[in-house]
């Protein structure tokens, strides 16, 4: 089990790191897809089946499409991103920031004694239970998320829509 976790970690962290470093945006987007798929695999490993499928459905199926669409629409796919003068400085600064955050987090994680419930096999949660909880105690949150998603969708459409008033009515 631990071995699987380590392998998954390598997959996730490796693809994420390479994706961040690559200059070809399409490649990084596809690597991000790999990273998300790895995270979904981690959820499966942890026994959260439903979340894993939701992760794949939403990240691999939808977010990645939107990202690729945005990359293509902004025509970044065919040429490499130009390296600007200030990017090295920013990279150093980011590295310092990231490193220090990592250090603090690692220290906290390793320094904290944890009361671990190592129930083996992994616990399961059926869809029915999940649904009951979502519609029961968390109904308000579900509703808000629904409204949020709708608003976000409409907002995205409004933001991205071209002002087509100069287009003929029969063209589309």
């Amino acid at each position, binding site marked *: 089990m631990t071995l699987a976790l380590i392998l998954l970690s390598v997959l996730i962290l490796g693809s994420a790191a390479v994706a961040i470093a690559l200059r070809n945006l399409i490649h990084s987007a596809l690597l991000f897809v790999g990273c998300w798929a790895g995270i979904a695999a981690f959820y499966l490993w942890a026994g959260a089946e439903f979340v894993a499928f939701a992760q794949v459905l939403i990240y691999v199926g939808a977010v990645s499409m939107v990202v690729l669409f945005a990359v293509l629409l902004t025509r970044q796919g065919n040429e490499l991103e130009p390296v600007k003068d200030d990017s090295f400085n920013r990279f150093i600064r980011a590295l310092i920031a990231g490193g220090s955050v990592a250090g603090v987090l690692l220290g906290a994680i390793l320094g904290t004694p944890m009361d671990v*419930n190592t129930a083996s096999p992994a616990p399961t949660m059926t869809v029915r239970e999940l649904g009951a909880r979502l519609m029961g105690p968390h109904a308000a949150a579900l509703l808000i998320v629904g409204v*949020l998603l709708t608003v*976000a969708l409409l907002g995205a459409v409004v933001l991205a829509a071209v002002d087509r008033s100069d287009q003929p009515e029969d063209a589309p």
Partner: protein
Amino acid sequence: MSQLQLCLVLSSFLFCIGLIGAMARSNTILVLLGVELMLNAANINFIAFWRYGPDHAAGTGILFVLFSIAIAASEAAVGLALVIAVYRHQKNIRLQEANRLKG
């Protein structure tokens, strides 16, 4: 190191990679993706704590992740719509140059 700690280390590294990406890259899409990674790192934590936490049946971790995924999806949609809008105005999507409120 216990499995929980491994998971937490994974998540913190992922978070840092996302942070570095968001800070170091100038391409708005990559910055957005870095933020997404940070969100994912948080999700990993939720699942890990649900897996090794005391109360599986409550499923709070799973529920939280579901909400978080929904929010991440809407963030991606709005963010990328913004990217496209910015691109339409200034012909590139370098974050540092998007410093005007008026197109």
